[in-house]
């Protein structure tokens, strides 16, 4: 399979006037073409930062990041804009933030298509049909309901036939039914998608989950089973449910097994 995304030891540091914050450290991640991945983890873990990196809105402070074979660290701002315009669709948290409220649904879609060639554009009418918004195509986005706005946000993100769809908490402010509609919509697309979510329904709907804790990938879930991920230098993040057995700061013995290792608490 072709790799849609490849992160190789990606580090992201935010610098402010006074302090530096390490948001992501040593992220190694590969997402195959057509795969749908959910980023899980507590607030502040670095999920959104990783999403912004994948969207080409940030360049990694260290490490390398490839999107569809293009290493974004080597791209200039203009090339990044082009890449984002042609290959990436983004749905931001809070549907209203994705839209120009006074523009109609159609205008919002066509606004997102301004940066790409005509042939790369999807017909706005078809897109709105697909998300079930053709009936409100001329209504200002600000007057649509939350669910309609979120579906319109997805339509806007798909306006340029992106190879990668990134969505940040696409169901966070929606009721159950509307949230389900959006999930179905993303599933139906069939394009490579990465979704940041706290919503278990979203994670269940994706083929793979990646849990990020403290800026590191701590676990991955595939086909309903969760795995810890052995990171660089052999680091492993124990899932929180095992912290009772091995509390942070405790000492453990590593006992090798033929197919792995066992951690046992060392009595002090």
């Amino acid at each position, binding site marked *: 399979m072709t790799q849609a995304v490849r992160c190789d030891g990606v580090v992201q540091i935010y610098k402010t006037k006074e302090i530096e914050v390490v948001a992501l450290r040593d992220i190694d991640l590969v997402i195959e073409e057509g795969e749908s991945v959910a980023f899980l983890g507590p607030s502040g873990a670095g999920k959104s930062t990783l999403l912004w990196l994948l969207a080409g809105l940030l360049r990694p402070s260290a490490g390398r990041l490839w999107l569809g074979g293009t290493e974004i660290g080597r791209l200039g701002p203009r090339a990044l804009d082009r890449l984002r315009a042609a290959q990436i669709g983004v749905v931001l948290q809070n549907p209203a933030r994705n839209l120009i409220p006074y*523009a109609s649904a159609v205008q919002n879609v066509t*606004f997102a298509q301004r*940066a790409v060639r005509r042939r790369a554009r999807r017909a706005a009418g078809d897109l709105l049909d697909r998300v079930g918004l053709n009936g409100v195509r001329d209504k200002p986005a600000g007057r649509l309901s939350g669910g309609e706005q979120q579906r319109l946000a997805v339509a806007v993100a798909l306006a340029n036939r992106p190879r990668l769809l990134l969505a940040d908490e696409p169901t966070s402010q929606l009721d159950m039914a509307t949230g389900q509609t959006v999930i179905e919509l993303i599933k139906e697309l069939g394009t490579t998608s990465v979704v940041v979510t706290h919503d278990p329904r979203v994670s269940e709907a994706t083929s793979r989950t990646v849990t990020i804790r403290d800026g590191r990938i701590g676990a991955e879930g595939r086909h309903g089973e969760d795995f810890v991920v052995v990171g660089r230098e052999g680091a492993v993040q124990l899932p929180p449910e095992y912290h009772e057995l091995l509390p942070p700061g405790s000492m453990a013995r590593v006992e090798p097994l033929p197919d792995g290792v066992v951690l046992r608490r060392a009595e002090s």
Partner: protein
Amino acid sequence: MMLRGLWRRRWLSLIVLIIAVVPVVAGSLGPMYTDAARTTLIRETLDKAILDHRGWRVTSVSDDAGELVKEITAPFLLPPIRGAELLSPNDKATKTYPLMWVEGQCDHVTTVVGRCPRAANEIMVSRASGFTVGDTVKLSLLSDPGAEKRRLTPLRVVGVYETDAADPLWYGRSLFPQTAGVTEGNGDPLLTAPETQGTVGVKTGGDRIDALVGAAWTSTAILYIDRNKITGDDVASLESLHARLRALGRTGETTTVFGYMDETLEAVHRRVDSLSVPTTLVTVQLVALGWLLLFLTVRDLVAARAQEIALARLRGLSTLRIWAFGLSEPAFLLLAALPIGIAASWAVVSRMAATLLRDDLVVTVDGFTVLCGVAAVFGGLLATALAARQTVTQPVVEQWRRTPRSRRRAWVVDAVVLAITAVGLAELLAGDVITDATGQRASALIAPGLLAVALALIARRLLPLACRALFRLTRTHGDIGAFLAMRQISRGSATASTVIVLAAGLGLAVFAVAAWSVTSRNYQEVARVHNGAETVFVVPRSDVATLRKISADVPGTAPVIVTPGPPAMLATDPARFASVALWRPSYAGNRPLNGMTAKLTPRTAAPRVLVGGDRIRAEVSTPKMPDGWSAILYADFRVTGETKPAIIPLGRPDSRIKVHEWGLPRGCREAVCELRGLRLEVTMAAGASLEDGPTGSVVVKKLEVRQDGRWSTVDAGLADTNRWTPAFVPRGGLPLSLESFGTGAVRPDTFPDPLPALSSGPGAGQKLPGLDDGHFSGFESVASAQALPGLNAPGVVVDLETADRVAYGYSPRTEFQIWAAPGRGDEVREALRRGSVPVLATRTTDDLVSGYVTQGPGLALLLLIVSAGVAALLALGRAVLALHTAARRRTYEMAALEAAGARVRPLRVALLLEQTITLSWGALTGVLAGLVAAWAALPRVPEFAETPVTPPLDYSLVPVPVLLVACAVLALSMIAAAVTSELLLRGVRVDQLREAPA
């Protein structure tokens, strides 16, 4: 989509539109106002100019003058008035008449009897000529060309006219001597039809010699400037036209161009040139303030669109498209502001022109005005781009995360502005570099803008610092309201722009008010001093006695004669002068005027020696003259109507002759003359010995004059030592020394020398011109003052009687005036009318003040105060808006505090305190900046087209208007703060917490 966006942000868009209109108005108003003001100045100059200063009279004895000027056209020129005239004596050679025709003459005369001439050889005569309809008049130069023998052509009188000698048709010439009562040799014009020129005698283009000697028709064409059409833009055309006409006058000896356009143009330049620099500086500052307001307001508009701009970046739009998207709305508003701004300027200038300038001005929008408006829009676009820069270029993630950016570079801008201000101020206070062509420092008008911005930059940094210090205190003491207010101000987000805008706008306004109030006071003071009295009536030049009589007949007046200097001399009746003159005791160390004028009249003065008749004889005793020596005794007389002494030789003193007799000057036959002196001139023949020179004195024992054939003794007091000077020892008469180096001249001691005088300015050692402007005399200052009423230059005030005794007559340069006491102008005018005293001109202090206001600097200050007032209001509005916007962003925070249990009162206190402190700080900074600018720049800002020499101008601030402005601004700030705080508090809802923070 853009229009929808504008509608969504309609209030903010409307404010941006209004603010965008400001620089366009400021940019286009200046040129339009300058045009209107220049037109006013040129038209007023022409209004005040006499006829021959408003046009040209082209005459030619060889060509048709009308043809000569045919090519000289301009939109502001009236059609030429063609004509022709022939100056010829009548057949008896008793009078010379101008025979003439002028286009449209019949419309400019009143026909008393008969009609206007219509055919050749018909004439119309003035009523004063004495001719009647049906008479014939023959002129010696007009002969029948067809006759074999020279026969004079009779001109038939068909009408009698009256006309106004001041009608422009006559070009201000003294054409009507008979009507004026001066009949010596010259008659009033005989108006004829143009056909006469072709049928009789000589004609234009005839014999060149005849033409040169005046025995030919002179063709004339009068060109006048149309005062209703000429505009400020026509000065260059007028100069070029004048140059062409001047060149025409130089082309041949038969064409002459009369006129005083050089003087008119000089006056125009003097007034117009003093307008351009100040109005440009005022305009530039207002445009800059408009740009600043625009910058800050557009920043808000673009910030309100930050979300959309971030979306555009997220969707991968190119930088160019993002700029276009980000600037589309403000750019549209700016473009919309161009026509609105120009239309608003036009309306404002039209109103200003009608109320403050003239009511005959047509304010037009010319290409330059539009260009200035476009330039203001481009400047606005640049300000818009700068304002949008941060939002447009900020990385999307930063925008989402609200990451604070380093603001280190802001110090660089501050430092540059402060450095420019410091250098500018230093040059203003100490240097002479920023001077304009007229020598006045119009550039000083840039000071308020510079100072306001500089002080604002400092103040915006000081306020957060001060509040940060108080923040620590309020954290531990008092309620939450003060704490919240201090914390918000110390963050400095809304403070900076508010303080800058308010300080700049109000600084300009306070300066404008200070400048206007100080200038108005100076106008009043200068007018008071220069006019001398509230109302001054200029009366015909006569003599001191007549003038004093006029004044004596009208209570509340003073007789005054002014002789221009230097030093200027004002002669008056001291007591009456002190009672009517406008005086400030501060001009002379708090001394009252009457105390000083009392010293002007000499305590003792000998009576004048008056004579009248046709002969004078002197009885003298003369010692024997040595061989080769002789002497001549002269007598000097003051004769009525002359300005020079009339000198007669009384005789050659000889020991053998006792009585010398000579004819008195002609003037003494009709009027009384005054004997002003006796002189002895001793001469030595060739070969005579100096050592054997005459000794002793010629003693004049008696003077007699003959009138109507009878001799009478002149009361000359020849033996009275008090009546003649220098002092002498009477020897039975008045001795005149014969010795070479003795006193050979004496005069009646009718006046002191030097004259006692009140003086102003440096006059030591200078001689006074005297009423005759020819016989200078010294003066002794009995008191000095910084300024003296009626004098617009350093000069003196002297006693009228004494000055008259010094003089030999009255120079044409003297002006005879009757001064009216304050509030009595109308009464005096009426009294003069009743007494049949012609009033040549009336000058009031109000007239002078109006004149100063319509000079260039006055008009520029008028522009400054009107514009600065509007700008200040806009600045205040913008400041309130900024605070409102900043506080509105915090309603979420307020809602959270309210939800957490904070009471409304401390929140109200917090908002009120925050807004009051910021607005008051900005307002006080503005007031301070305005005051500092006024202190530094006012003495250097031109107030007059030509700075008056006296009185000294007072640049101390007039406190009342400045205080009023400061109080009004502070009160408005308080009200604005209270209203916005209340509005915001009412907008705080706990429900807001359900939404994401804005």
